[in-house]
């Protein structure tokens, strides 16, 4: 088993996935998009967040997102905006900050070829 690129983090007691990003990137994300795992990719929940297994390699990807994004989100049943709203409702966190964090996660996963996005319109 080949290990893979780790997704590094610094301690943050409030948000578990402190990737660096900016609001302009966030705005570029489409709220009516859904996200699905790429072919050959599986994911499961771990204490640190999500563990992705990519058949191509095979490779592992560790996403220290704690409980910010659940594995079911990658079934494509919930849109981006629905995810943001559900996280905000559950944790009472500011929408802008949640949106930034989620967008950074999704961009990272897209860049690594682990997920595909699709408009539901």
């Amino acid at each position: 088993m080949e290990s893979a690129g780790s997704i590094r983090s610094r301690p943050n007691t409030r948000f578990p996935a402190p990737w660096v990003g900016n609001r302009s990137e966030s705005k570029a994300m489409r709220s009516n998009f859904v996200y699905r795992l790429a072919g050959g990719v599986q994911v499961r929940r771990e204490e640190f967040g999500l563990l992705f297994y990519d058949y191509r390699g095979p490779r592992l990807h560790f996403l220290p997102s704690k409980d910010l994004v659940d594995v079911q989100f990658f079934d494509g049943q919930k849109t981006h905006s629905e995810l943001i709203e559900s996280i905000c409702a559950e944790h009472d966190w500011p929408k802008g900050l949640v949106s930034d964090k989620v967008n950074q996660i999704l961009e990272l996963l897209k860049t690594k070829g682990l997920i595909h996005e699709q408009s539901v319109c």
Partner: protein
Amino acid sequence: MSNQYVERGLSAPVNVTWEVTYACNLACVHCLSDSGARRNGELTTEECRKVIDAMAANKVFQFSIGGGEPFVRSDFMDLMDYAHEKGIVTCISTNGTMIDDEIARRLAHNLVYIQVSLDGARPQSNDAIRGRGSFRKALRGLECLKKRDIEVSINTVLTRLSILELDALADLAASLGAKFRVSRFRPSGRGKRSWGHLNVSRKQMLSFSDWLSDHMSVSTGDSFFSVTHEDRKSLGLNMCGACKLTCCVSPLGEVYPCAFLQENEFLAGKLPEEAFAPVWMNSPVFQSFRELEIRSCESCDRFELCHGGCPAIAYHTQKRLGLPDPGCLANCVSPKMPLSGVA
């Protein structure tokens, strides 16, 4: 490698090595599990399906299937189909001698990897280890797999004999469109008896390390990390994954830390009678293995590359855990260690 997450412990293995039978049509002199005849108590088809169910329920991603020779089991392809239905990737280690067009047709699945073992690039050298006629039959199997465009690796165990033919084996793999993988020889199973005359010398190990650095496409298996140079560290694990990323299920359903530590003192549980999750999470064997520290290696400047190497080799050569891998290239192991073949 995100060691920090792995060392804290995952909820389940990423990969489970599953030796599905002790039965084998060959009798390789270095066989890790001393395979040959089928043994009493091997899991039935229904019990195997329960093992697959248990792994799927625990979200295990991959089986590394071995034996014995898996294709000796008449239900083997059905079991693989069942694992694939559950979404589990299968990496099948085989001697290749039983693979024909029909088996290759059924193996043409996007969740399958095949690893065919060869220990020489010629019939004479391979058959000296694996038995008469095995080279020709394995080549025939490899050709069947090639016709179906199935992803294949040729796996060679590094010995005093195979090290002489690494270039030729790499060329052979390339000619068959296969990847090439070299695994360390470990003194378990029949390997205990052949260790003395087949294990490579320290000089050969150094030579192999250099060879690897010139052949970056050659993979080295789970924990061959301790013999590789800095520039290869991104190509594989830099730590032993036993009880952290992986474990082993024997043909009898016994759960062990890895295929090379199938000893009574490492028995953690038995499937399918016991639920897998408690065995993985709570068995004293696995918990103590996760806490294993190779303290004498921690001050070594190579520690971050290998984390002490392979505990199984240390155990089999020195009869206890917690000692450095004697194959270490940093010369941190005393030359007085009871190793055969050390130059």
